[in-house]
């Protein structure tokens, strides 16, 4: 599902009832769209990349621990 193009920004309307809706038109439309935004399909390559980066972080945190221990000595 591709997102519908947003309407052009509304001009200021200072009448008591509508000025807020006019000023927030784009925001209100996005809010409604966001409610239905679900998870994205993740293929094997993407999952592999995410796990690889996770392992990278865990490994690097261990290296930092080793470095701190070295500096402490």
């Amino acid at each position, binding site marked *: 599902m*591709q997102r519908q193009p947003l309407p052009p920004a509304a001009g200021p309307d200072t009448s008591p009832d509508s000025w*807020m809706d006019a000023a927030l038109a784009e925001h209100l439309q996005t809010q409604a769209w966001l*409610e239905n*935004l679900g*998870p994205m399909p993740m293929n094997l390559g993407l999952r592999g990349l*995410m796990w690889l980066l*996770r392992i*990278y972080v865990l490994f690097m945190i261990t290296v930092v621990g080793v470095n*701190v221990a070295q500096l402490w000595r």
Partner: protein
Amino acid sequence: MASGTIQSDTTQPGTTQPDTTPKEEMAARARDRLQVLTARQSGRWGRLLWLLVGPGILVMLGENDAPSMLSYSATGARFGVGFFLPFVALTFAMAFIAQEVTVRLGAVSKTGHADLIYRRFGRLWGNFAMADLLFTNVLTLITEFVGIVAGAGYFGIPKSVAVAGGVSLVTLTLAAHRYWVWERLTLALAVCNLVFVPVAILTHPHWGRVASAFATWGPLPRGGFGASTLTILLADIGATITPWMLFFQQGAVSDKGLATSDVFHGRIDTALGAFLATLAAAACIIAASPLFIHHMPAGQFGAAQFAQALVPYAGRFGAALFALGILEAGLVAATTISASSAYAFGEVARRAHSLNAAARQAPSFYLVFILVAAVAGAIVLIPGFPLEAVVLMVNIVAVLTMPPAVAFLLILANDREIMGAYKSTSGLNALGVGVGAFVALAGIVYALSVIIPGFRL
């Protein structure tokens, strides 16, 4: 919008709420939008820019935090004016590339970074991202208070008073319950980061050498890039590119209410922030460079020691400005990092999270905002806590957690369902992948320098 799609703290979780954004929050944002629309329609471009700048300058000057300024001081003291000046400018250019994406993401989706990660990648990957953010935010906040205490210590202010003052300031900025007021107060404080510019001028640097360093990327560090130089190099990268910046700026852009028509100004805001932050960082390196020229062993200096050591070169006034700069850097970053934590918490817990919301409508948001700062401040007061190790490693840890954060960022920026016409172009993708690869490779080189004794580039 910041908390438009989720429940207010006063509503029961799980109940159907088609529109639960508090009226006051909506009205505040609508008033801000109306001013923007009026300025745009009347062609008052200066006023429009004034209304739309904020998140970009705040995130960049916020990242010039206490450990970052200490890292730049250590760089200036150990290597003088040379390779690291243009290198720092390069890291801020990379920070701009990453942060520009958050402007588009925030303006298009009107929600925060954590919310988008949870929605699109699911709970498992969202939890990983949050663990990285929480870990680095807590560590960084502790170092902000180390900076606050050290900077205040130069003026004879006791530790506990400095911590209480820092937490009070973070709390006071929230008092108006208005994003605009909070942003302007924090901005006013953040521009004081430029205090390092007069300090640099007071040390009477050789401006020809400064210009030559930018033009030639030299001289290179003496002895090449060994383990200790690589540690400083990584710390300087960590002083400009960190996970909290992504969460903060997207949260602030969405809370400020930027629309898709404001993306251009959001980019200007971010570029302006990157420029100002580069100026302050370069000034800090230049200010500390007399310590290199006079062979002062400043490797383990704290803020007060740096300020004291600069007295012969910058004078008492310059040294006091330096200490004030570290204090200010800690205060601004304590505020912005607390904000990034509170936004992320609100998005993940699906609780109201806006600086436009009243305290009764978003109690957990404001509680987290103040609590993280208070806990970090309290930790600094614990006798015997290994603060030096935290200060030394915080920027490095921040860099090492960046590659997955950049991956989330780039995938979201290319998510057609979210971004539509604002999806990243191939040029922006190439730059983004370049930043991710650079950060990941820098981490690998650092790991090799730790694991292999005597390793050098």
